[in-house]
C-alpha cells in the first residue's frame, strides 16, 4: 500500500501493466525523456526503453492514426494527447476510424487502444488547456469513455482500460492530478469499466457527478452535513460510456431528487443524457425536476474567470437547496 496522488497512481498502473504485457507501447509528445508535461510517464522510457516509450512528431492526428495501425497490428498502444484541447486534430482518426473499425470490418480488425488525455479546468492553464469534451466521445458509438476522480480509481480503471479489447478514452482530471493522496494498493486490482461508485449514501437527494467535480460535490455534502442538513447520496459515474444507469436509477428511485454536476457545458453535456434517462426510468418517483450544475454554454474563459465558470461547492449547494425546496 502506498500513499499516492493521481499522477503517481497512473504511473504505477502503467509500469505494472507494461511489465505484464509486452504489447503495450506508449507514444506521444514529450512523454519520453521529459516524462510528459504532467510527468505521468516519468521514468518509463528509462525503464522500458525507447522501443516501448517514444516521442512522436507534434501531430495529434498522426499520433492517433499511428496508434490505430499499431493496434490493428496486434499491439496495445497508449497514446497521450497532451491536453484535451488538442483532441481536435485527432477527432477524425478517433471517431472515423478507431471507433468504427471493429464494426465496419465485422470484427476482422480491432483497435485495442487507451488514449490518455489530461482534461478539465482549474489549474490556471492557457487557452484550450481547460475544456471538458467527454460528451463528444460518449456520443460516438464504438468508444468507451472513462474519467476517474481519485488515485485509487485511476489505477483500477486504467488497468481495465489497458486490458480492454476496444478503444478507451481515458480522461485524467488535471485539477486533481496532485490535489490529494490516498492509499493505493500496489497489488493488482481492477475496477470495471461501466460501473459507478456510491461515494456516500443518503436518502433525501442523489448527486451524480464524475471527474474533478466529484471533489466539489463532496465539499458541498460535507458543508450540508455540518449544518445537520439533508442526507445526500453521491454517485461517481467513473465511466461516461458505457454508463451505470442501474446505479443512478436505484438511487433516484430511493431519493426522488437528483442533481447532476459536471464541468462541461450545460447543453448536450452528458448530464442531459442522465437527466433524460432519469425522466424515463423514474418518472413516478421524481419529487422535483432533475437539476444540472454544469459549465456554461460559453467558451471556457481564460483563467482569471475560470472559477466563475466551473461548478463549485457553492453552486452545488444552491442546486441541492433548490431541488429539495421544490
Amino acid at each position: 500500500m502506498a500513499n499516492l496522488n493521481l499522477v503517481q497512481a497512473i504511473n504505477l498502473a502503467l509500469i505494472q501493466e507494461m511489465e505484464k504485457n509486452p504489447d503495450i507501447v506508449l507514444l506521444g509528445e514529450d512523454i519520453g525523456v521529459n516524462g510528459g508535461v504532467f510527468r505521468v510517464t516519468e521514468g518509463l522510457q528509462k525503464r522500458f526503453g525507447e522501443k516501448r516509450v517514444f516521442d512522436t512528431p507534434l501531430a495529434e492526428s498522426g499520433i492517433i492514426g499511428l496508434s490505430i495501425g499499431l493496434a490493428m497490428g496486434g499491439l496495445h498502444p497508449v497514446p497521450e494527447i497532451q491536453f484535451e484541447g488538442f483532441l481536435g486534430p485527432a477527432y477524425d482518426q478517433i471517431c472515423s476510424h478507431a471507433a468504427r473499425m471493429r464494426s465496419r470490418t465485422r470484427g476482422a480488425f480491432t483497435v485495442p487502444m487507451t488514449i490518455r488525455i489530461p482534461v478539465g479546468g482549474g489549474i490556471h492553464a492557457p487557452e484550450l488547456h481547460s475544456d471538458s469534451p467527454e460528451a463528444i466521445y460518449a456520443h460516438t458509438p464504438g468508444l468507451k469513455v472513462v474519467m476517474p476522480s481519485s488515485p485509487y480509481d485511476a489505477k483500477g480503471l486504467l488497468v481495465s482500460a489497458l486490458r480492454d479489447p476496444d478503444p478507451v478514452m481515458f480522461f485524467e482530471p488535471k485539477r486533481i492530478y496532485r490535489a490529494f493522496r490516498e492509499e493505493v494498493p500496489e497489488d493488482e486490482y481492477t475496477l470495471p469499466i461501466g460501473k459507478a461508485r456510491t461515494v456516500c449514501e443518503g436518502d433525501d437527494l442523489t448527486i451524480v457527478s464524475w471527474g474533478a467535480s466529484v471533489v466539489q460535490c463532496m465539499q458541498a455534502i460535507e458543508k450540508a452535513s455540518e449544518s445537520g442538513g439533508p442526507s445526500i447520496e453521491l454517485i461517481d459515474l467513473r465511466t461516461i460510456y458505457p454508463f451505470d444507469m442501474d446505479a443512478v436509477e436505484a438511487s433516484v428511485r430511493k431519493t426522488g431528487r437528483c442533481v447532476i454536476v459536471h464541468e462541461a457545458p450545460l447543453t448536450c453535456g452528458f448530464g442531459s443524457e442522465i437527466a433524460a434517462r432519469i425522466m424515463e426510468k423514474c418518472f413516478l418517483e421524481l419529487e422535483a425536476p432533475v437539476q444540472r450544475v454544469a459549465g456554461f454554454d460559453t467558451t471556457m474563459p481564460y483563467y482569471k474567470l475560470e472559477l466563475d465558470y466551473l461548478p463549485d461547492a457553492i453552486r452545488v449547494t444552491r442546486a441541492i437547496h433548490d431541488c429539495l425546496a421544490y
Partner: protein
Amino acid sequence: MPITTAYEAKIEHISILDEKGNFDEKLGKGLIPDADLVKLYEAMVSCRQLDQVAFRLQRSGRMGTYPQNMGQEATSLGAAYVLRKDDWMVTCYRENCGLFWRGVPKEAILLHWMGDERGNAMPKPHWVTPIYVPLGTQMLHAAGLTMAAKYRGEDRIACTFFGDGASSEGDFHEACNFASNLKIPVVFVCQNNFWAISTPSRINSAAPTFAQRGLSYGMPCLQCDGNDLFATVHTMRKSVEYSRSTGLPCFVEMVTYRLGDHTTADDASRYRGKDEVDAWKARDPIIRLRNYMTARKLWDDAKEAALAERVEQENAEAVARAEGIASPDRADFFNAMYAEIPQDLVIQRETMQTHSLGQDPTQLPPEAQERAAQLAAEAAAAHH
C-alpha cells in the same frame, strides 16, 4: 560568404513500355517472366470487366454508388505483384486490381459497395486492410501496422495507396513525417490520376510533380508511368527493396488517369473535355500491354476471345456470390460494436427500440400492450 547549395534533388521518371509500343530493353528485359506477364494481363482484363459489370449493377439498382477503377489497373497490380504476400497493402478504393491479385475475393469488394460491411471482413492472410472511404487517413494506419511488425522483429513492410487529391490532406503529411522520423518502412504510392472528383491535380499541388512531396520528408522519390505495367513493376521493385533493406520509407508517384467518372454518382463531362479523355484512352494500360504481347507472340485474338469468355463467367459467379449472400439479421449492426456489448446496447438490440416504453412495454396499461406488440412486429417486417 558565398551562397552555397543546402540541398539539391531530382526526380527520375520511369517509362519502359510507352503508348506507342516503344520498349526499353535495358530496363524491361527479363523484368517480368512471360508466363507472369500473361497472368498479369489477364488480371487487368478481369478487373476491367468487373468494373463494367459493377457499373451496370449500379445503373440497374442492384448496387449502390461505385467508384470505377478503369484505366488505373497497372498501378496497384504492379505493386501487388512485387510485394511479398505477407507485406501489408493499405489501399483506398481504386486498387481493385492489386487486391484481387493478392487473393481478395471479388465478392468482398462488391459487397462493400452493395452496402454490406461483411465485404470489409478481409481475412488476415491477404494482409490487406478494407477499403477506406475518407481520403488520406489510411497511410497512418499503414505506418502503424508496419511499426507493429517491426516491434515484433518481422521484416514485413507496407505499401499504401492514395490519390493526388488525398495528398493534400494533413494526415498524408503526418504519415510521411511519422514514417520518416520513426523509421518505418512504408512505400507511399500516390496515384496521380489528375482528377479528385472535379478538382484538377493542379489545385492540389502547384509543384511540377507529386513525387517531390516526399522530398521534404527525406524520402527517396520516384515517378513512373502508371499506365505502364513494366514501369510500375520496376519502380515498385526498387522502392520495396529500398524500404525492406533500409527499414525506411520511400515515395512513388504513378502518373495515370481516371478514365471513368469519380463514382457512378458523378458526371465527369461537367468538368473535363472529351479530347482529354480520348487522349488518355489511347494510353490505356491494357491495350498497351496487349499490343506488346501480341507483337511478342504471347497473345492472339483466339486467346483474347477465350479470356473474355472466361472472365465474364468468373465475374458473373462473383456477382452471384455477392448477391446470393443471406441477408444479415436486422440487428446485425449491434454485434460488432464492442467485444462485449454494453447492457444498454443489448436492450436496444433486443427491442430494436430506443424509446424506453418500447424497450419495456410492460409499463403500458394492458390494453395498450397489444397494439405496441403489433407495431413492433410491423417494424420488424417493414424492411425485409
